[in-house]
């Protein structure tokens, strides 16, 4: 019962938590905004990793595609923030239409490697090939072009925070629906046993493609939000080195769960915030955390929360959840 209550109230609890944080740590608002945007990005990756069983070393590519789509819209076409988000999601969708037929037929290892390669191509395209449009390494600046939005002017950081929280709430709600829908369950089933999926009559390729598309659209949306938040975009957003961040956040949160991505984003960025306050470069720490998480902590924060809830309820149930881990 506890689990069920948690999953119904989950999105609300998360949003309330964030609002409380915002008032406890008023000077951390940039950080909290980043956590919210990063959560959406991690949720996108979680669809690939947790539901479809594909590990992508190329998520920054999809993120920067979304960011650049929004940035180019702002710089050259208009100032409507909603329009920019829509453009990013549509570009993400079109990109997935182009790539899915090739990528979704690949074995998991090749998928990972090809995504890493895509990511490098992305940086090249945005930095050098489209230099006339994107200004290359200098980045594309457009804050002045954004027009005010009705009710809540999201050009101001404190308003933008509530705006992204609203988006996260919607995203979490839909995500939770997806988790229990036939689509979500068939994606998980495809991850466990694609062959059997074929043998009860489902089209594995299409199910995977839909999941891939959702993942990319969420990444692109997160990219657009980043762009709006910063007011400029540069190619470093899409660098290969950052691919591990989203993977690690997904792992820390708990792979394949609905609320894991949020806690993963919070845990990861929190750790990064603390570590970077006394260490300028932190690859070393990221590496060690990755290994510790994979070997010792593989159900993530959400797994721990579930175990905790189980503890409250009964010992028996806890044994069951521990068993899943094996």
């Amino acid at each position: 019962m506890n689990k069920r209550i948690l999953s119904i109230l989950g999105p609300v609890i998360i949003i309330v938590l964030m609002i409380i944080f915002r008032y406890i740590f008023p000077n951390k608002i940039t950080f909290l905004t980043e956590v919210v945007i990063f959560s959406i990005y991690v949720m996108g990756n979680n669809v690939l990793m947790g539901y479809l069983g594909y590990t992508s070393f190329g998520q920054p590519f999809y993120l920067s595609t979304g960011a650049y789509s929004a940035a180019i819209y702002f710089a050259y076409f208009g100032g409507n923030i909603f329009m920019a988000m829509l453009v990013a999601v549509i570009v993400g969708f079109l990109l997935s239409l182009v790539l899915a037929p090739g990528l979704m037929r690949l074995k998991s290892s090749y998928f990972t490697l090809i995504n890493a390669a895509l990511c490098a191509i992305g940086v090249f395209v945005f930095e050098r090939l489209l230099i006339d449009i994107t200004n290359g390494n200098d980045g594309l600046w457009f804050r002045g072009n954004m027009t005010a939005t009705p009710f809540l002017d999201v050009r101001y950081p404190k308003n933008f925070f509530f705006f992204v929280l609203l988006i996260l709430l919607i995203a979490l709600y839909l995500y939770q629906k997806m988790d229990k829908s036939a689509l979500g369950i068939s994606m998980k089933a495809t991850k466990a046993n694609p062959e059997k999926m074929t043998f009860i009559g489902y089209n594995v390729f299409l199910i995977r493609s839909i999941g891939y598309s959702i993942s990319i659209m969420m990444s692109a949306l997160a990219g657009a939000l980043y762009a709006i938040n910063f007011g400029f975009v540069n190619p470093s957003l899409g660098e290969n080195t950052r691919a591990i961040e989203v993977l690690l956040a997904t792992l820390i949160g708990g792979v394949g769960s609905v609320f894991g991505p949020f806690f993963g984003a919070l845990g990861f960025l929190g750790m990064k915030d603390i570590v970077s306050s006394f260490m300028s470069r932190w690859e070393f720490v990221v590496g060690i955390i990755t290994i510790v998480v994979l070997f010792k902590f593989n159900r993530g924060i959400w797994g721990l929360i579930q175990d905790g809830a189980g503890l409250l309820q009964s010992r028996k149930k806890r044994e069951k959840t521990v068993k899943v881990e094996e």
Partner: protein
Amino acid sequence: MEIWITAIIYGLATSGILFLVSLALSIGYGLMRVVNMEAMLYYSFGAYVTYTIISVTGSFILGALGGMVVGAGLGLIVETQLLRKIYDRPMMFTMVVTFGVFMIGIGIIQFVWGLEPKPVASPISAIVKIFGGVQIPAYRLLIIVVAIAAYILIQLMMNRTIIGKALRAGIDNRENVEGLGVNINKIFTITFIVASAFAGLGGALNAPLVMVGPYMGFDMLLFAFITVILGGLGSIKGTMVAALILGQVINVGGTLWAPLAFVGPFIVMFFTILIRPTGLFGKEI
């Protein structure tokens, strides 16, 4: 005309470096079915150790040897302490773990050598004239010679020594080799050490051509990936052929149209994978 000959020879030198550094990735996969992302550490450390030894002793040969030794040592540690224990885990798990190791390695490099890229002077500045007047730096020719020697060496090892025979038998059927009483793990470790020594050597040889920086492994990782994917994961011959193709794509293609030097390899890989999902010489996974 001269410009093309230069491009081709430069391409061969690039192929040489690619072949040396990709071997550890390819062999890691061929032996243990692990995509070992950390393979490029041997390359980076090889380059850094070469840089340090050169700045202390001034000898490039000593530096290159040091790079090989350090590469081999790292390979030994990683293979025995990590790869062997995780080879039967899911592919995702091994990739992320080895990537974590890669990050730790980059962190160590930053602690030891700092963030600033280090220049390494070319040990041979002579220019050789071939084909009646085409000027080629002798150092590039040296790289080609070393890579050819490495290829011959590894082929000899595979075909002439008992270790190579056990290895080929082990890739074919690991269990039967063990059943004869051969410690196949030891054989795999030796092979892996050889491959990581070559990666270290690749780093040493490439050091004078690029800036030695903490992220040099990252830049190379992508090209090494493309090499092994194109050649087929696990095939030494495939790695060699792919390195040859990519060397020409990068240099000749780059001469044709500059962006091809970067994008060309990706394009070649994508089309190859579309036609042959397991690469040129790869077997079904």
